C-alpha cells in the first residue's frame, strides 16, 4: 500500500496549534472528492475533529500542559485509507478502560475518545519510543470506475 501523501508535523505542546493542524487535516480530506466516502465536507469536518480531540488529549492529559514538550502528528494518505498518528510524551492510559457506550449527556467532559471511536474505523493507543501514539484509521472506498 503506497502512500499518496505523507505530512509530518511537530508543534509545541500548546492548544493554540489545534486549529492549524486540524485545518491541515481538513484540507487533506477535502482532496478526497474522488472517494465514495459519504459527504466530502462531512468527512473533512470529522478529520479536523479527530485531530483536534487527539491533540487536545495529548497536550492536556498525556503531556500535562508542559510547555517544554511537543506533539508530533503524522497524516498518511494511501489509496485505501487515511491514517492519523498523534504522538505524545506522556505515561499513557489504557484506552480499553474508556467506556464504549454513549457518554452521559449531563457530564461536561469525557466525549473526546467517544467521538474519535465513532468517526474512525480503527483506533489504537500504544507505547512508542518517546511516549505513546494514538493511531486512527479511516478506510476510503474508491468510486467504481465508469464503463465507456
Amino acid at each position, binding site marked *: 500500500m503506497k502512500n499518496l501523501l505523507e505530512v509530518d508535523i511537530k508543534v509545541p505542546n500548546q492548544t493554540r496549534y489545534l486549529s492549524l493542524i486540524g485545518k491541515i487535516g481538513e484540507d487533506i480530506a477535502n482532496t478526497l472528492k474522488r472517494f465514495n466516502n459519504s459527504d466530502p465536507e462531512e468527512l473533512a469536518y470529522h478529520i479536523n*475533529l479527530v485531530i483536534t480531540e487527539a491533540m*487536545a488529549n495529548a497536550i492536556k492529559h498525556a503531556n500535562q500542559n508542559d510547555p517544554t514538550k511537543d506533539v508530533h502528528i503524522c497524516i498518511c494518505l494511501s489509496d485505501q485509507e487515511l491514517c492519523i498518528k498523534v504522538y505524545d510524551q506522556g505515561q499513557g492510559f489504557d484506552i480499553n478502560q474508556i467506556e464504549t457506550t454513549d457518554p452521559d449527556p*449531563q457530564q461536561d467532559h469525557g466525549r473526546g475518545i467517544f467521538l474519535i471511536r465513532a468517526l474512525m474505523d480503527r483506533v489504537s493507543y500504544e507505547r512508542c519510543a518517546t511516549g505513546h501514539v494514538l493511531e486512527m484509521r479511516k478506510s476510503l472506498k474508491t468510486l467504481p470506475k465508469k464503463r465507456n
Partner: protein
Amino acid sequence: MNVTLQEFDKAISVSIEEERLDAHNSNELKAQLLNLFEEGKINIIIDLKSVRFIDSSGLGALVSGFKNASSRNGGVKLCGLQPQVKSMFELTRLHRVFEIFPGIDEALATF
C-alpha cells in the same frame, strides 16, 4: 474569546464571534458564563451562528453552562447551529439536553 452580549427583558444573548469553539477557548466561554450567572443573569441564549467547528471541550463548556443555569433555576438555550455543529449535538445526544432554536428571537419567545 470574542462575544457580543445583548440584554433583553427575560434573557441575555451571548453571540460567540469565533469560528472555532474548542479546547483552546472553551474555558473562556465557561468563565464568561459563570460571570453572567454571578451577576444574576441566569437565562441565557447562546448564539452559535458564527461557529463553524465545535469539539468535545466546546460541547462540555455548553453543558457546564446548562447545569449551572439549571441549578440557579435559570436556563441556557441555543440557536444558530450550522449543520456540522448540529450533527455533533446529535452524535453525542446533546440535542436531547438543550433546547435548540433557529435564531435569538425564537429562543427569546420561550423564556
